[in-house]
């Protein structure tokens, strides 16, 4: 153990309880963290990276998840051997921690100031005035606006980025030698993510902290890491300097992971021949009324519409991206087009018919033409029906005899590259990627002319994501179906979209060929969005 090592994990093994999907979360892992460095631990879901991070702080869900072997040396002291009191003295003081979801990581009924001050109460003897002064000082340093107000605020009164900044204040207030950050930017929008990443890096350099940064995103790694450790199924497969791992990974798993990260440069596309228009949206506006159950309904001031004057054209065989951050109105537009919600005004013409104006009943025959693929593969299938039943459901509803519809199922399963034996099983027997394929098959069963895909790969691991994108492109080529692809991920958009529309605060602020938009963004928002993509420099250099 060298002088600059602040944390050394040796042969750590963590066992999971009998009912878990795997027996061991962390398998004989050896890893160290140096002073003044950011070590990124990368892995897909189930790699054990979070369990490893939590075992350092003694935060595993005892007694089910338990450490069965190894040691964790923090400044020469084995954390697995220290008593509870010593461990508490180290928590918050020697090691700080921030979590993925700052909303749930903060106590909802306690003010931000109070929650941060608790840390000082536990570890130092200060007067209330001194405590507050220290908290406010660091709040200023992390650039929280109006610290006095935030000090008195409750978590729900802050934005996601502000909450995460407050968590960072809490974690770094006592200047710990280690900061453990467990996916701290995953729940944030890309522009906020860029700011938080820069902040963590800045504070880390200033304080020479050792940061253990858990992430699944190689873009984030490229942005912040000094060294990288890659984990798979609880095993450390590769560790080394960031430049080396990102440029020339040795282990095949690392290589496949990096290869699966979509590049930021859109591939060159052959110009498409003029094709008939499938979808023509004009001037669609939608605002949400805040639901009120009060007896005396107050006239609320008209809120900014979730969607204003949106216009979209999609041609046969074309993939059009709807790009934006949360609250941009992209999902609202997608849902208006599929008539899951009704637009306030405007025209939605599908193959020439204005479906926006049809009653729900009159709409039913037209449902066949536009189908949807959803984000969450675990929520998008009915847990109580067999796969065959769900895929055949649509055609049956449209009047096809059940026997005929069920016969079609195996053809559809093959189309989405699933084994036909899947037909008689229930959704819980499948992985996330497989379920997403089932969802696609269900949509394709209707022979739609337009597919609306709402963040279809956001919930998937990067390797699975690549395969699903591949499948969608293949389906487009084979069936000539048009696609409206909603995503917040510019990397995904670069790979799959022919054209893209950038949305911001309910408005389409820019549109054009994907290549043109990426190469020469016109609107300032598009520019800031592109600038915020983590690992964009790495993305530019690594294109093969």
């Amino acid at each position, binding site marked *: 153990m060298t002088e600059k090592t602040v944390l050394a994990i040796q042969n750590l093994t963590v066992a999971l309880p009998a009912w878990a999907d795997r027996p061991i979360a962390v398998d004989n892992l050896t890893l160290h963290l140096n002073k003044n460095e950011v070590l990124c631990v990368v892995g897909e879901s189930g790699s054990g990276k979070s369990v490893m991070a939590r075992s350092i702080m003694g935060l595993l869900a005892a007694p089910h998840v338990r450490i069965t072997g190894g040691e964790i040396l923090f400044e020469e002291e084995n954390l697995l051997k220290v008593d509870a009191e010593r461990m508490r003295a180290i928590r918050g003081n020697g090691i700080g921690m921030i979590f993925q979801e700052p909303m749930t990581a903060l106590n909802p009924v306690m003010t931000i100031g109070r929650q941060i001050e608790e840390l000082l109460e536990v570890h130092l003897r200060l007067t209330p005035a001194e405590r507050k002064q220290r908290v406010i000082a660091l709040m200023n340093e992390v650039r929280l606006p109006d610290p006095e107000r935030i000090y008195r605020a409750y978590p729900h009164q802050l934005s996601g980025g502000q909450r995460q900044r407050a968590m960072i204040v*809490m974690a770094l207030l006592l200047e710990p030698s280690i900061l453990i950050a467990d996916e701290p930017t995953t729940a944030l929008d890309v522009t906020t993510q860029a700011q938080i990443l820069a902040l963590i890096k800045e504070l880390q350099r200033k304080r020479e902290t050792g940061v253990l940064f858990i992430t699944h995103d190689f873009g984030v790694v490229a942005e912040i890491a000094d060294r990288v450790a890659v984990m798979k199924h609880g095993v450390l497969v590769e560790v080394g300097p960031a430049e080396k791992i990102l440029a020339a990974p040795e282990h095949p798993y690392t290589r496949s992971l990096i290869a699966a990260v979509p590049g930021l440069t859109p591939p060159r596309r052959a110009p498409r021949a003029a094709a008939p228009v499938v979808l023509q949206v004009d001037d669609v506006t939608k605002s949400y009324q805040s639901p009120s159950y009060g007896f005396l309904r107050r006239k609320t001031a008209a809120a900014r519409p979730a969607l204003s004057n949106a216009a979209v054209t999609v041609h046969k065989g074309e993939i059009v991206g709807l790009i934006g951050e949360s609250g941009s109105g992209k999902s609202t537009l997608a849902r208006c087009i599929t008539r899951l919600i009704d637009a306030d005004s405007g025209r939605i013409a599908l193959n020439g018919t204005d479906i926006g104006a049809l009653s729900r009943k009159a709409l039913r025959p037209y449902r066949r033409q536009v189908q949807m693929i959803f984000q969450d593969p675990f929520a998008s299938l009915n847990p109580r029906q067999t796969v065959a039943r769900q895929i055949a459901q649509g055609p049956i509803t449209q009047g096809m005899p059940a026997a005929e519809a069920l016969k079609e199922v195996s053809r559809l399963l093959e189309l989405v590259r699933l084994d036909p034996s899947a037909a008689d099983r229930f959704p819980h027997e499948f992985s996330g990627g497989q379920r997403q394929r089932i969802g696609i098959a269900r949509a394709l069963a209707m022979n739609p002319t337009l597919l609306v895909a709402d963040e279809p790969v956001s919930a998937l691991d990067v390797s699975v994501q690549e395969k699903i994108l591949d499948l969608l492109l293949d389906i487009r080529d084979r069936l000539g179906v048009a696609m409206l692809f909603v995503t917040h991920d510019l990397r995904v958009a670069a790979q799959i979209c022919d054209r893209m529309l950038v949305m911001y605060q309910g408005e389409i602020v820019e549109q054009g060929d994907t290549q043109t938009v990426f190469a020469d963004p016109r609107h300032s928002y598009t520019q800031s969005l592109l600038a915020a993509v983590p690992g964009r420099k790495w993305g530019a250099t690594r294109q093969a």
Partner: protein
Amino acid sequence: MRLLPSATAFRFIGRRLLNAVPVLLGIAVLNFLLMQLAPGDAVSVLAGESGGAPPEYIEQLRRQYGLDQPILVQLALYMKNLLSFNLGHSFRHGMPVLDLILDRMGPTLLLMGSAFFFSLLSGVLLGVTAAVAVNTWRDRAISVLSVITYATPLFWMGLMLILLFSVRLEWFPTSGMEDVVAFYEGWDRVRDIARHLVLPMVTLSLFYMAVYARMMRASMLEQRDMDYVLTARAKGLTERKITYRHVLRNALLPVVTMAGVQVGALLGGSVVIESVFAWPGLGQLAFQSLFARDFNLLLGIFFLSACMVIVVNLVVDLIYMALDPRMKIG
């Protein structure tokens, strides 16, 4: 606990009171409809009992009480009376219903109020104790206790407690609110009433205590798995502090909501308990009016009880607001 800025609090109370208006109206209409459904109008019951009153006299009584008017006029009349707190006349007692009710309100409020606080306090305490010592003998003992009290009929529990503590052990009196022939005054009277109160209060509390204990335990265990507990632990707080400073307050929220919902049920329970312990409250009055077929009185009690529940619910909402800053106001 956060103190509310008074202006917001007043606005909230005002809005809630306004929201209560349609509910009260609804209850009034319901009350009126129930009265119409009741077999025979009050006059015929009265006349029937006085034994063959002359029909002219009955007609005169009907006119006097407006019972010969069309039904909507009667409803309007009824509403007008309600607005001036006129709940009608109890023919049986020969007194205005409101006077009778106000007379009996005190004992019921005493019984209900003490049972409300006793059950909530002991339920929360037991729930916390069980959750802190989850899966130990203490947890199990509390579970068994609450499961059994949860399944016991209130009135039977009362009878069995009387059998044990009054008849066999002679610790507490069997019935009534005070020893009327002893003519106690001052503190002696308070002590006497307290002695009479113990058994009915405990009986009424046991069921709700079980409800709150189970809920509090479950709520504590649920909150204990939340992320903010992990944050608190990562700050270096002791488990004790985490439990009492972070988990407890969050866990209390659903229990407070539940307590608000239960107030109406508590009132129903007190009808039975008052009958078991001969407690001279509204429940007893309702019980008597039931068998005297004094529907005016019964429905008056019903109406005022509903009003009481609305008021208590408002208080509970205010408490909830003070506990949970996320509650949106206005």
